[in-house]
Protein backbone atom coordinates (compact mmCIF):
# COMPACT_ATOMS: atom_id res chain seq x y z
CA UNK A 1 0.00 0.00 0.00
CA UNK A 2 2.85 2.39 0.83
CA UNK A 3 4.28 1.68 -2.62
CA UNK A 4 0.99 2.66 -4.19
CA UNK A 5 0.71 5.88 -2.19
CA UNK A 6 4.29 6.79 -3.00
CA UNK A 7 3.83 6.31 -6.73
CA UNK A 8 0.43 7.84 -7.39
CA UNK A 9 1.59 10.15 -10.22
CA UNK A 10 3.22 7.20 -12.03
CA UNK A 11 0.10 5.04 -11.61
CA UNK A 12 -2.04 7.88 -12.90
CA UNK A 13 0.10 8.23 -16.03
CA UNK A 14 0.01 4.50 -16.69
CA UNK A 15 -3.76 4.40 -16.22
CA UNK A 16 -4.32 7.21 -18.71
CA UNK A 17 -1.99 5.50 -21.20
CA UNK A 18 -3.86 2.26 -20.69
CA UNK A 19 -7.22 3.89 -21.33
CA UNK A 20 -5.96 5.56 -24.51
CA UNK A 21 -4.22 2.42 -25.80
CA UNK A 22 -7.21 0.21 -25.17
CA UNK A 23 -10.24 2.38 -25.96
CA UNK A 24 -9.13 4.46 -28.94
CA UNK A 25 -8.74 1.21 -30.93
CA UNK A 26 -12.25 0.16 -29.87
CA UNK A 27 -13.66 3.39 -31.28
CA UNK A 28 -11.62 3.12 -34.50
CA UNK A 29 -12.55 -0.55 -34.81
CA UNK A 30 -16.26 0.19 -34.39
CA UNK A 31 -16.18 2.92 -37.03
CA UNK A 32 -14.45 0.56 -39.48
CA UNK A 33 -16.56 -2.47 -38.62
CA UNK A 34 -19.93 -0.81 -39.30
CA UNK A 35 -19.46 -0.36 -43.07
CA UNK A 36 -17.74 -3.75 -43.28
CA UNK A 37 -20.59 -5.41 -41.40
CA UNK A 38 -23.06 -3.68 -43.70
CA UNK A 39 -21.15 -5.01 -46.69
CA UNK A 40 -21.11 -8.50 -45.21
CA UNK A 41 -24.85 -8.33 -44.58
CA UNK A 42 -25.68 -7.32 -48.13
CA UNK A 43 -24.39 -10.19 -50.21
CA UNK A 44 -23.64 -13.82 -49.53
CA UNK A 45 -20.19 -13.51 -51.15
CA UNK A 46 -19.43 -10.38 -49.13
CA UNK A 47 -20.39 -12.19 -45.97
CA UNK A 48 -18.14 -15.18 -46.69
CA UNK A 49 -15.14 -13.00 -47.54
CA UNK A 50 -15.48 -10.48 -44.73
CA UNK A 51 -16.20 -13.01 -42.02
CA UNK A 52 -13.44 -15.42 -42.99
CA UNK A 53 -10.95 -12.61 -43.34
CA UNK A 54 -11.82 -11.17 -39.94
CA UNK A 55 -11.63 -14.63 -38.39
CA UNK A 56 -8.17 -15.03 -39.87
CA UNK A 57 -7.02 -11.65 -38.51
CA UNK A 58 -8.13 -12.59 -35.03
CA UNK A 59 -5.94 -15.71 -35.04
CA UNK A 60 -2.71 -13.67 -35.37
CA UNK A 61 -1.04 -13.68 -31.94
CA UNK A 62 -1.01 -10.22 -30.43
CA UNK A 63 2.66 -10.38 -29.51
CA UNK A 64 3.58 -11.16 -33.12
CA UNK A 65 1.49 -8.24 -34.30
CA UNK A 66 3.18 -5.83 -31.88
CA UNK A 67 6.57 -6.97 -33.14
CA UNK A 68 5.83 -7.07 -36.87
CA UNK A 69 3.68 -3.95 -37.27
CA UNK A 70 6.65 -1.51 -37.15
CA UNK A 71 8.12 -3.31 -40.16
CA UNK A 72 4.84 -3.02 -42.05
CA UNK A 73 3.91 0.53 -40.99
CA UNK A 74 7.45 1.90 -41.02
CA UNK A 75 7.04 3.12 -37.44
CA UNK A 76 9.59 2.87 -34.67
CA UNK A 77 9.47 -0.21 -32.44
CA UNK A 78 7.91 1.57 -29.46
CA UNK A 79 5.62 3.94 -31.38
CA UNK A 80 2.18 3.86 -29.63
CA UNK A 81 0.62 3.77 -33.10
CA UNK A 82 1.65 0.13 -33.27
CA UNK A 83 -0.53 -0.75 -30.28
CA UNK A 84 -3.42 1.34 -31.55
CA UNK A 85 -3.31 -0.26 -34.99
CA UNK A 86 -2.91 -3.79 -33.66
CA UNK A 87 -5.83 -3.50 -31.26
CA UNK A 88 -7.99 -1.77 -33.90
CA UNK A 89 -7.41 -4.79 -36.12
CA UNK A 90 -8.63 -7.11 -33.35
CA UNK A 91 -11.67 -4.94 -32.66
CA UNK A 92 -12.63 -4.93 -36.31
CA UNK A 93 -12.16 -8.69 -36.46
CA UNK A 94 -14.43 -9.15 -33.44
CA UNK A 95 -17.09 -6.64 -34.40
CA UNK A 96 -17.59 -7.27 -38.11
CA UNK A 97 -19.29 -10.56 -37.51
CA UNK A 98 -21.37 -9.16 -34.66
CA UNK A 99 -22.53 -6.23 -36.76
CA UNK A 100 -23.33 -8.42 -39.76
CA UNK A 101 -25.38 -10.72 -37.51
CA UNK A 102 -27.09 -7.82 -35.77
CA UNK A 103 -28.09 -6.28 -39.09
CA UNK A 104 -29.42 -9.53 -40.49
CA UNK A 105 -31.49 -9.98 -37.31
CA UNK A 106 -33.50 -6.80 -37.98
CA UNK A 107 -36.99 -8.15 -38.82
CA UNK A 108 -37.81 -8.24 -42.55
CA UNK A 109 -41.23 -6.82 -41.79
CA UNK A 110 -39.68 -3.65 -40.38
CA UNK A 111 -37.12 -3.38 -43.19
CA UNK A 112 -39.82 -3.83 -45.85
CA UNK A 113 -42.08 -1.37 -44.17
CA UNK A 114 -39.27 1.21 -44.10
CA UNK A 115 -38.57 0.67 -47.79
CA UNK A 116 -42.26 0.96 -48.62
CA UNK A 117 -42.46 4.26 -46.69
CA UNK A 118 -39.86 5.66 -49.08
CA UNK A 119 -36.58 5.38 -47.16
CA UNK A 120 -33.54 5.40 -49.45
CA UNK A 121 -31.17 2.49 -48.65
CA UNK A 122 -28.60 4.75 -46.97
CA UNK A 123 -31.18 6.56 -44.87
CA UNK A 124 -32.81 3.30 -43.89
CA UNK A 125 -29.46 1.94 -42.72
CA UNK A 126 -28.84 4.92 -40.46
CA UNK A 127 -32.43 5.46 -39.36
CA UNK A 128 -33.76 1.93 -38.96
CA UNK A 129 -31.26 -0.92 -39.34
CA UNK A 130 -28.46 0.50 -37.22
CA UNK A 131 -30.55 1.63 -34.22
CA UNK A 132 -32.28 -1.74 -34.11
CA UNK A 133 -28.88 -3.45 -34.16
CA UNK A 134 -27.61 -1.47 -31.13
CA UNK A 135 -28.33 -4.09 -28.44
CA UNK A 136 -26.33 -6.76 -30.28
CA UNK A 137 -23.58 -4.31 -31.23
CA UNK A 138 -23.22 -3.27 -27.58
CA UNK A 139 -22.85 -6.92 -26.60
CA UNK A 140 -20.02 -7.22 -29.14
CA UNK A 141 -18.44 -3.96 -27.96
CA UNK A 142 -18.32 -5.24 -24.38
CA UNK A 143 -16.28 -8.25 -25.47
CA UNK A 144 -14.07 -6.09 -27.70
CA UNK A 145 -13.45 -3.47 -24.99
CA UNK A 146 -12.59 -5.95 -22.26
CA UNK A 147 -10.32 -7.94 -24.54
CA UNK A 148 -8.64 -4.75 -25.69
CA UNK A 149 -8.01 -3.69 -22.09
CA UNK A 150 -6.38 -7.01 -21.33
CA UNK A 151 -4.34 -7.04 -24.57
CA UNK A 152 -2.71 -3.71 -23.74
CA UNK A 153 -0.97 -5.46 -20.85
CA UNK A 154 0.63 -7.81 -23.38
CA UNK A 155 2.00 -4.75 -25.13
CA UNK A 156 3.73 -3.76 -21.91
CA UNK A 157 5.88 -6.90 -22.02
CA UNK A 158 7.55 -5.63 -25.17
CA UNK A 159 7.99 -2.17 -23.75
CA UNK A 160 4.78 -0.22 -24.39
CA UNK A 161 3.16 1.77 -21.60
CA UNK A 162 -0.04 1.05 -19.75
CA UNK A 163 -0.84 -0.69 -16.51
CA UNK A 164 0.99 -3.84 -17.74
CA UNK A 165 4.19 -1.98 -16.85
CA UNK A 166 3.30 -2.53 -13.22
CA UNK A 167 3.45 -6.31 -13.78
CA UNK A 168 6.76 -6.27 -15.64
CA UNK A 169 8.32 -3.75 -13.31
CA UNK A 170 6.91 -5.44 -10.22
CA UNK A 171 8.31 -8.82 -11.31
CA UNK A 172 11.74 -7.47 -12.14
CA UNK A 173 12.09 -5.54 -8.90
CA UNK A 174 10.05 -7.96 -6.81
CA UNK A 175 7.53 -5.40 -5.60
CA UNK A 176 4.41 -7.50 -4.86
CA UNK A 177 2.27 -4.48 -4.07
CA UNK A 178 2.96 -3.09 -7.55
CA UNK A 179 1.90 -6.32 -9.25
CA UNK A 180 -1.28 -6.63 -7.19
CA UNK A 181 -2.15 -2.95 -7.71
CA UNK A 182 -1.68 -3.42 -11.45
CA UNK A 183 -3.98 -6.44 -11.55
CA UNK A 184 -6.64 -4.71 -9.48
CA UNK A 185 -6.53 -1.57 -11.60
CA UNK A 186 -6.86 -3.53 -14.87
CA UNK A 187 -9.83 -5.40 -13.41
CA UNK A 188 -11.49 -2.23 -12.15
CA UNK A 189 -10.91 -0.49 -15.46
CA UNK A 190 -12.49 -3.43 -17.32
CA UNK A 191 -15.48 -3.43 -14.96
CA UNK A 192 -16.00 0.32 -15.20
CA UNK A 193 -15.81 0.33 -19.01
CA UNK A 194 -18.14 -2.66 -19.21
CA UNK A 195 -20.68 -0.98 -16.92
CA UNK A 196 -20.49 2.25 -18.91
CA UNK A 197 -21.15 0.32 -22.11
CA UNK A 198 -24.15 -1.46 -20.60
CA UNK A 199 -25.59 1.80 -19.28
CA UNK A 200 -24.82 3.66 -22.49
CA UNK A 201 -26.53 0.92 -24.50
CA UNK A 202 -29.60 1.16 -22.29
CA UNK A 203 -29.74 4.93 -22.66
CA UNK A 204 -29.60 4.58 -26.44
CA UNK A 205 -32.37 1.99 -26.61
CA UNK A 206 -35.28 3.14 -24.41
CA UNK A 207 -37.70 1.06 -26.52
CA UNK A 208 -36.04 -2.15 -25.41
CA UNK A 209 -37.54 -1.78 -21.95
CA UNK A 210 -40.82 -0.27 -23.12
CA UNK A 211 -42.16 -3.72 -23.99
CA UNK A 212 -41.50 -4.99 -20.47
CA UNK A 213 -43.77 -2.49 -18.78
CA UNK A 214 -47.36 -3.50 -18.31
CA UNK A 215 -49.37 -2.95 -21.45
CA UNK A 216 -51.57 -0.20 -20.23
CA UNK A 217 -53.14 0.36 -23.64
CA UNK A 218 -56.86 -0.14 -23.83
CA UNK A 219 -57.80 -2.66 -26.50
CA UNK A 220 -58.80 -0.89 -29.69
Amino acid sequence: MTWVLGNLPLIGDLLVQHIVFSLVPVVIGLVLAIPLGWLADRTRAGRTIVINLSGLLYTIPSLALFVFLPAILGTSILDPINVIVALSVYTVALLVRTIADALSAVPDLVVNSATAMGFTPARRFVGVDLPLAIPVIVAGLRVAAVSSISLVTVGSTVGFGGLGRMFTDGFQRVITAEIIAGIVLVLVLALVVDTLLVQGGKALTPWERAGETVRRGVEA
Partner: protein
Amino acid sequence: MIEFRDVTKRFPDGTVAVDALNLTAETGRITVFVGPSGCGKTTSLRMVNRMIEPSSGVIEVDGQDIMAGDPAELRRGIGYVIQAAGLFPHRTIRDNIATVPMLLGWNKKQARERAMELMETVGLAPEMGSRYPAQLSGGQQQRVGVARALAADPPVLLMDEPFSAVDPVVRENLQDELLRLQSELGKTIVFVTHDIDEAIKLGDRVAVFRTGGHLAQYDEPGVLLARPADDFVDNFVGRDRGYRGLGFVSSSGLPVGELRTVEVGGSAPEGWSLVVDRERRPLGWHHGGTAGGTAGEENLVPGGSLYDAGSGSLRSALDAALSSPSGQGVAVAADGRVSGSISADDVLAALAVARRDDAAA
Protein backbone atom coordinates in the same frame (compact mmCIF):
# COMPACT_ATOMS: atom_id res chain seq x y z
CA MET B 1 -56.82 5.88 -60.54
CA ILE B 2 -54.49 2.91 -60.71
CA GLU B 3 -54.30 1.13 -64.00
CA PHE B 4 -52.73 -2.27 -64.69
CA ARG B 5 -52.17 -2.96 -68.40
CA ASP B 6 -51.01 -6.45 -69.37
CA VAL B 7 -48.95 -6.65 -66.20
CA THR B 8 -47.01 -9.88 -65.74
CA LYS B 9 -44.63 -10.82 -62.97
CA ARG B 10 -42.34 -13.76 -63.57
CA PHE B 11 -39.90 -14.55 -60.76
CA PRO B 12 -36.31 -15.66 -61.56
CA ASP B 13 -37.22 -19.29 -60.77
CA GLY B 14 -39.82 -19.22 -63.56
CA THR B 15 -42.98 -18.98 -61.43
CA VAL B 16 -45.56 -16.69 -62.91
CA ALA B 17 -47.12 -14.83 -59.99
CA VAL B 18 -49.25 -12.44 -62.03
CA ASP B 19 -50.29 -13.26 -65.58
CA ALA B 20 -51.27 -10.45 -67.96
CA LEU B 21 -53.34 -8.51 -65.44
CA ASN B 22 -55.66 -5.82 -66.80
CA LEU B 23 -57.53 -3.89 -64.15
CA THR B 24 -58.43 -0.35 -63.15
CA ALA B 25 -58.82 0.72 -59.54
CA GLU B 26 -61.13 3.74 -59.55
CA THR B 27 -60.21 7.04 -57.91
CA GLY B 28 -61.73 7.52 -54.47
CA ARG B 29 -62.91 3.91 -54.24
CA ILE B 30 -61.83 0.83 -52.31
CA THR B 31 -60.71 -1.93 -54.65
CA VAL B 32 -60.13 -5.25 -52.92
CA PHE B 33 -57.84 -7.97 -54.25
CA VAL B 34 -58.91 -11.30 -52.84
CA GLY B 35 -57.99 -14.91 -53.52
CA PRO B 36 -56.29 -18.01 -52.12
CA SER B 37 -52.56 -17.92 -51.29
CA GLY B 38 -50.37 -17.96 -54.38
CA CYS B 39 -52.95 -16.16 -56.52
CA GLY B 40 -50.78 -13.08 -57.07
CA LYS B 41 -52.93 -10.60 -55.15
CA THR B 42 -50.10 -9.43 -52.89
CA THR B 43 -47.59 -9.38 -55.75
CA SER B 44 -50.00 -7.23 -57.75
CA LEU B 45 -50.33 -4.79 -54.85
CA ARG B 46 -46.58 -4.59 -54.23
CA MET B 47 -45.93 -3.80 -57.87
CA VAL B 48 -47.83 -0.54 -57.49
CA ASN B 49 -45.13 0.98 -55.26
CA ARG B 50 -42.34 -1.06 -56.84
CA MET B 51 -41.63 -3.19 -53.80
CA ILE B 52 -41.73 -5.79 -56.57
CA GLU B 53 -41.01 -4.69 -60.12
CA PRO B 54 -43.22 -5.97 -62.95
CA SER B 55 -41.58 -8.15 -65.61
CA SER B 56 -43.71 -6.66 -68.36
CA GLY B 57 -46.71 -4.43 -68.83
CA VAL B 58 -47.46 -0.95 -67.55
CA ILE B 59 -48.80 0.29 -64.22
CA GLU B 60 -49.98 3.88 -64.03
CA VAL B 61 -50.96 5.82 -60.93
CA ASP B 62 -53.06 8.83 -61.89
CA GLY B 63 -51.68 8.68 -65.40
CA GLN B 64 -48.00 8.45 -64.34
CA ASP B 65 -46.00 5.38 -65.28
CA ILE B 66 -44.62 4.14 -61.97
CA MET B 67 -41.36 3.05 -63.60
CA ALA B 68 -40.57 6.61 -64.70
CA GLY B 69 -39.01 8.03 -61.53
CA ASP B 70 -37.06 7.15 -58.40
CA PRO B 71 -38.69 4.33 -56.40
CA ALA B 72 -38.13 5.93 -52.97
CA GLU B 73 -39.80 9.11 -54.18
CA LEU B 74 -42.71 7.16 -55.67
CA ARG B 75 -43.24 5.36 -52.36
CA ARG B 76 -43.38 8.58 -50.34
CA GLY B 77 -46.40 9.54 -52.45
CA ILE B 78 -48.25 6.27 -51.83
CA GLY B 79 -49.52 5.31 -48.40
CA TYR B 80 -48.69 1.76 -47.38
CA VAL B 81 -50.19 -0.26 -44.56
CA ILE B 82 -48.42 -3.53 -44.02
CA GLN B 83 -49.46 -6.80 -42.41
CA ALA B 84 -49.13 -6.71 -38.60
CA ALA B 85 -48.57 -2.93 -38.86
CA GLY B 86 -44.77 -3.21 -39.37
CA LEU B 87 -44.15 -0.28 -37.06
CA PHE B 88 -40.63 0.82 -36.19
CA PRO B 89 -40.08 -0.64 -32.71
CA HIS B 90 -37.43 1.94 -31.85
CA ARG B 91 -39.57 4.97 -32.56
CA THR B 92 -42.39 6.42 -30.51
CA ILE B 93 -45.89 6.29 -31.93
CA ARG B 94 -45.68 9.97 -32.78
CA ASP B 95 -42.40 9.53 -34.64
CA ASN B 96 -43.69 6.42 -36.41
CA ILE B 97 -46.60 8.42 -37.78
CA ALA B 98 -44.33 11.34 -38.71
CA THR B 99 -42.06 9.06 -40.78
CA VAL B 100 -43.07 10.08 -44.29
CA PRO B 101 -43.42 13.83 -43.55
CA MET B 102 -39.87 13.70 -42.13
CA LEU B 103 -38.65 11.88 -45.25
CA LEU B 104 -40.29 14.58 -47.32
CA GLY B 105 -38.29 17.18 -45.44
CA TRP B 106 -40.96 18.78 -43.26
CA ASN B 107 -39.56 20.33 -40.12
CA LYS B 108 -39.84 18.28 -36.96
CA LYS B 109 -42.46 20.46 -35.33
CA GLN B 110 -44.79 20.38 -38.32
CA ALA B 111 -44.35 16.64 -38.72
CA ARG B 112 -45.17 16.02 -35.06
CA GLU B 113 -48.18 18.27 -35.14
CA ARG B 114 -49.43 16.36 -38.18
CA ALA B 115 -48.83 13.10 -36.28
CA MET B 116 -50.91 14.26 -33.32
CA GLU B 117 -53.69 15.31 -35.69
CA LEU B 118 -53.71 11.87 -37.29
CA MET B 119 -53.78 10.10 -33.94
CA GLU B 120 -57.05 11.82 -33.33
CA THR B 121 -58.32 10.91 -36.81
CA VAL B 122 -57.73 7.20 -36.21
CA GLY B 123 -59.04 7.32 -32.65
CA LEU B 124 -55.89 7.10 -30.53
CA ALA B 125 -55.51 9.02 -27.28
CA PRO B 126 -52.85 11.77 -27.58
CA GLU B 127 -50.86 10.46 -24.59
CA MET B 128 -50.03 7.37 -26.62
CA GLY B 129 -47.83 9.54 -28.81
CA SER B 130 -44.85 9.11 -26.53
CA ARG B 131 -45.19 5.33 -26.17
CA TYR B 132 -43.38 2.68 -28.16
CA PRO B 133 -45.19 0.17 -30.40
CA ALA B 134 -44.50 -2.70 -27.97
CA GLN B 135 -46.68 -0.90 -25.40
CA LEU B 136 -49.76 -0.99 -27.66
CA SER B 137 -52.28 -3.73 -28.40
CA GLY B 138 -52.43 -5.28 -31.86
CA GLY B 139 -55.51 -3.26 -32.78
CA GLN B 140 -53.91 -0.01 -31.64
CA GLN B 141 -50.73 -0.78 -33.57
CA GLN B 142 -52.83 -1.31 -36.68
CA ARG B 143 -54.45 2.10 -36.19
CA VAL B 144 -50.98 3.61 -35.95
CA GLY B 145 -50.13 1.81 -39.19
CA VAL B 146 -53.08 3.46 -40.89
CA ALA B 147 -52.22 6.88 -39.42
CA ARG B 148 -48.63 6.50 -40.61
CA ALA B 149 -49.80 5.70 -44.13
CA LEU B 150 -52.04 8.79 -44.16
CA ALA B 151 -49.47 11.18 -42.71
CA ALA B 152 -48.38 12.91 -45.91
CA ASP B 153 -51.96 12.83 -47.25
CA PRO B 154 -51.19 10.59 -50.24
CA PRO B 155 -54.00 10.18 -52.79
CA VAL B 156 -53.38 6.44 -52.98
CA LEU B 157 -53.33 3.94 -50.14
CA LEU B 158 -52.10 0.35 -50.45
CA MET B 159 -53.23 -2.00 -47.69
CA ASP B 160 -51.55 -5.39 -47.56
CA GLU B 161 -53.68 -7.72 -45.40
CA PRO B 162 -53.62 -5.04 -42.72
CA PHE B 163 -56.11 -6.63 -40.34
CA SER B 164 -55.09 -10.27 -40.62
CA ALA B 165 -53.15 -10.38 -37.37
CA VAL B 166 -55.84 -9.11 -34.98
CA ASP B 167 -58.71 -11.01 -33.41
CA PRO B 168 -62.13 -11.03 -35.13
CA VAL B 169 -63.80 -8.47 -32.86
CA VAL B 170 -61.00 -5.95 -33.20
CA ARG B 171 -60.84 -6.68 -36.92
CA GLU B 172 -64.48 -5.81 -37.38
CA ASN B 173 -63.89 -2.62 -35.43
CA LEU B 174 -60.98 -1.65 -37.64
CA GLN B 175 -62.99 -2.41 -40.78
CA ASP B 176 -65.82 -0.12 -39.65
CA GLU B 177 -63.27 2.53 -38.80
CA LEU B 178 -61.69 2.24 -42.24
CA LEU B 179 -65.08 2.69 -43.91
CA ARG B 180 -65.77 5.73 -41.75
CA LEU B 181 -62.36 7.23 -42.57
CA GLN B 182 -62.82 6.52 -46.26
CA SER B 183 -66.19 8.26 -46.29
CA GLU B 184 -64.35 11.37 -45.04
CA LEU B 185 -61.11 11.06 -47.00
CA GLY B 186 -62.10 9.48 -50.32
CA LYS B 187 -58.71 7.91 -51.01
CA THR B 188 -57.98 5.54 -53.85
CA ILE B 189 -57.46 2.37 -51.85
CA VAL B 190 -56.22 -1.02 -52.95
CA PHE B 191 -56.79 -3.56 -50.19
CA VAL B 192 -55.47 -7.12 -50.21
CA THR B 193 -57.08 -9.85 -48.15
CA HIS B 194 -57.64 -13.60 -48.25
CA ASP B 195 -60.91 -13.17 -46.39
CA ILE B 196 -63.87 -12.96 -48.78
CA ASP B 197 -66.16 -11.56 -46.09
CA GLU B 198 -63.72 -8.71 -45.49
CA ALA B 199 -63.53 -8.15 -49.27
CA ILE B 200 -67.30 -7.98 -49.59
CA LYS B 201 -67.68 -5.71 -46.62
CA LEU B 202 -65.01 -3.20 -47.62
CA GLY B 203 -64.82 -3.30 -51.39
CA ASP B 204 -66.58 -0.95 -53.76
CA ARG B 205 -65.26 -3.41 -56.30
CA VAL B 206 -63.69 -6.78 -55.65
CA ALA B 207 -61.11 -8.52 -57.83
CA VAL B 208 -61.08 -12.27 -57.25
CA PHE B 209 -57.74 -13.84 -58.21
CA ARG B 210 -57.16 -17.51 -58.87
CA THR B 211 -53.93 -19.47 -58.46
CA GLY B 212 -51.39 -18.60 -61.15
CA GLY B 213 -52.10 -14.89 -61.09
CA HIS B 214 -55.27 -14.83 -63.20
CA LEU B 215 -58.10 -12.42 -62.55
CA ALA B 216 -61.22 -14.56 -62.22
CA GLN B 217 -63.81 -11.83 -61.75
CA TYR B 218 -63.81 -8.10 -61.10
CA ASP B 219 -67.17 -6.77 -59.98
CA GLU B 220 -69.14 -5.01 -57.31
CA PRO B 221 -69.62 -7.27 -54.27
CA GLY B 222 -73.38 -7.60 -54.83
CA VAL B 223 -72.78 -8.86 -58.37
CA LEU B 224 -70.07 -11.22 -57.14
CA LEU B 225 -72.54 -12.83 -54.75
CA ALA B 226 -75.47 -12.87 -57.14
CA ARG B 227 -73.68 -13.92 -60.31
CA PRO B 228 -70.25 -15.51 -59.76
CA ALA B 229 -68.44 -15.81 -63.10
CA ASP B 230 -67.54 -19.47 -62.70
CA ASP B 231 -67.30 -22.40 -60.28
CA PHE B 232 -64.03 -21.14 -58.83
CA VAL B 233 -65.53 -17.79 -57.81
CA ASP B 234 -68.70 -19.53 -56.63
CA ASN B 235 -66.64 -21.81 -54.42
CA PHE B 236 -64.45 -19.03 -53.19
CA VAL B 237 -67.33 -16.74 -52.33
CA GLY B 238 -68.48 -19.59 -50.14
CA ARG B 239 -71.66 -20.76 -48.51
CA ASP B 240 -74.69 -18.64 -47.76
CA ARG B 241 -73.92 -16.38 -50.69
CA GLY B 242 -77.62 -16.15 -51.47
CA TYR B 243 -78.32 -14.84 -48.01
CA ARG B 244 -75.24 -12.61 -47.93
CA GLY B 245 -76.19 -11.23 -51.33
CA LEU B 246 -79.37 -9.82 -49.80
CA GLY B 247 -77.09 -7.31 -48.04
CA PHE B 248 -76.63 -5.59 -51.41
CA VAL B 249 -80.33 -5.46 -52.33
CA SER B 250 -82.06 -2.26 -51.31
CA SER B 251 -85.15 -2.69 -49.17
CA SER B 252 -86.96 0.34 -50.56
CA GLY B 253 -90.57 -0.64 -51.20
CA LEU B 254 -90.54 -3.30 -48.49
CA PRO B 255 -93.88 -3.00 -46.68
CA VAL B 256 -93.69 -2.17 -42.99
CA GLY B 257 -96.71 -3.57 -41.16
CA GLU B 258 -98.52 -2.88 -37.90
CA LEU B 259 -96.83 -3.96 -34.69
CA ARG B 260 -98.49 -4.35 -31.32
CA THR B 261 -96.45 -2.47 -28.70
CA VAL B 262 -96.89 -1.95 -24.99
CA GLU B 263 -95.04 0.52 -22.79
CA VAL B 264 -92.90 -1.08 -20.12
CA GLY B 265 -94.89 -1.75 -16.96
CA GLY B 266 -98.20 -1.54 -18.81
CA SER B 267 -100.65 -4.41 -19.15
CA ALA B 268 -100.17 -6.60 -22.20
CA PRO B 269 -102.80 -8.63 -24.04
CA GLU B 270 -102.43 -12.37 -24.78
CA GLY B 271 -99.72 -13.51 -27.21
CA TRP B 272 -96.62 -11.55 -28.24
CA SER B 273 -96.24 -7.79 -27.75
CA LEU B 274 -93.17 -5.62 -28.22
CA VAL B 275 -92.26 -3.80 -25.02
CA VAL B 276 -91.02 -0.25 -25.58
CA ASP B 277 -89.76 2.56 -23.37
CA ARG B 278 -91.35 6.02 -23.16
CA GLU B 279 -89.59 7.11 -26.34
CA ARG B 280 -90.98 4.07 -28.18
CA ARG B 281 -87.56 2.45 -28.35
CA PRO B 282 -87.72 -1.37 -28.26
CA LEU B 283 -86.72 -3.07 -25.00
CA GLY B 284 -87.74 -6.70 -25.66
CA TRP B 285 -90.73 -8.94 -26.14
CA HIS B 286 -93.44 -9.99 -23.76
CA HIS B 287 -95.54 -13.10 -24.08
CA GLY B 288 -98.85 -12.62 -22.34
CA GLY B 289 -99.82 -16.31 -22.41
CA THR B 290 -103.53 -16.81 -23.09
CA ALA B 291 -104.75 -14.25 -20.57
CA GLY B 292 -102.38 -11.29 -20.89
CA GLY B 293 -100.29 -9.84 -18.03
CA THR B 294 -98.01 -7.05 -16.92
CA ALA B 295 -95.08 -6.28 -19.25
CA GLY B 296 -92.51 -5.72 -16.50
CA GLU B 297 -88.79 -5.37 -17.10
CA GLU B 298 -88.16 -8.67 -15.28
CA ASN B 299 -90.12 -10.87 -17.70
CA LEU B 300 -88.77 -9.47 -20.98
CA VAL B 301 -87.76 -11.90 -23.73
CA PRO B 302 -84.69 -10.53 -25.56
CA GLY B 303 -85.49 -9.30 -29.05
CA GLY B 304 -83.70 -10.02 -32.30
CA SER B 305 -81.77 -7.68 -34.57
CA LEU B 306 -83.38 -4.39 -35.56
CA TYR B 307 -84.07 -3.33 -39.13
CA ASP B 308 -83.49 0.30 -40.01
CA ALA B 309 -86.41 1.05 -42.32
CA GLY B 310 -84.63 4.08 -43.79
CA SER B 311 -81.31 2.62 -44.87
CA GLY B 312 -81.37 -1.14 -44.24
CA SER B 313 -80.88 -3.88 -46.81
CA LEU B 314 -83.10 -6.91 -47.42
CA ARG B 315 -80.55 -8.89 -45.44
CA SER B 316 -81.04 -6.87 -42.28
CA ALA B 317 -84.83 -6.99 -42.80
CA LEU B 318 -84.80 -10.78 -43.18
CA ASP B 319 -82.47 -11.17 -40.22
CA ALA B 320 -84.75 -9.01 -38.08
CA ALA B 321 -87.71 -11.22 -38.97
CA LEU B 322 -85.83 -14.50 -38.47
CA SER B 323 -84.21 -13.52 -35.17
CA SER B 324 -87.35 -12.16 -33.52
CA PRO B 325 -88.94 -14.55 -31.00
CA SER B 326 -92.41 -13.60 -32.26
CA GLY B 327 -91.54 -14.05 -35.94
CA GLN B 328 -92.25 -10.36 -36.53
CA GLY B 329 -89.13 -8.34 -37.29
CA VAL B 330 -88.86 -4.95 -35.61
CA ALA B 331 -88.43 -2.00 -37.96
CA VAL B 332 -87.06 1.20 -36.45
CA ALA B 333 -86.62 4.72 -37.75
CA ALA B 334 -83.24 6.45 -37.84
CA ASP B 335 -83.80 7.80 -34.31
CA GLY B 336 -84.34 4.30 -32.93
CA ARG B 337 -88.13 4.51 -32.45
CA VAL B 338 -90.20 1.55 -33.48
CA SER B 339 -91.87 2.13 -36.82
CA GLY B 340 -93.55 -1.23 -37.49
CA SER B 341 -93.03 -4.90 -38.27
CA ILE B 342 -91.38 -6.89 -41.02
CA SER B 343 -92.29 -10.40 -42.09
CA ALA B 344 -89.97 -12.88 -43.76
CA ASP B 345 -92.59 -13.52 -46.46
CA ASP B 346 -92.60 -9.84 -47.40
CA VAL B 347 -88.79 -9.87 -47.70
CA LEU B 348 -88.94 -12.83 -50.10
CA ALA B 349 -91.68 -11.15 -52.10
CA ALA B 350 -89.56 -7.96 -52.31
CA LEU B 351 -86.61 -10.06 -53.46
CA ALA B 352 -88.72 -11.57 -56.25
CA VAL B 353 -89.66 -8.04 -57.39
CA ALA B 354 -86.03 -6.90 -57.28
CA ARG B 355 -85.00 -9.90 -59.39
CA ARG B 356 -87.68 -9.22 -61.95
CA ASP B 357 -86.60 -5.57 -62.24
CA ASP B 358 -82.99 -6.69 -62.49
CA ALA B 359 -83.76 -9.12 -65.32
CA ALA B 360 -85.77 -6.46 -67.16
CA ALA B 361 -83.02 -3.87 -66.87
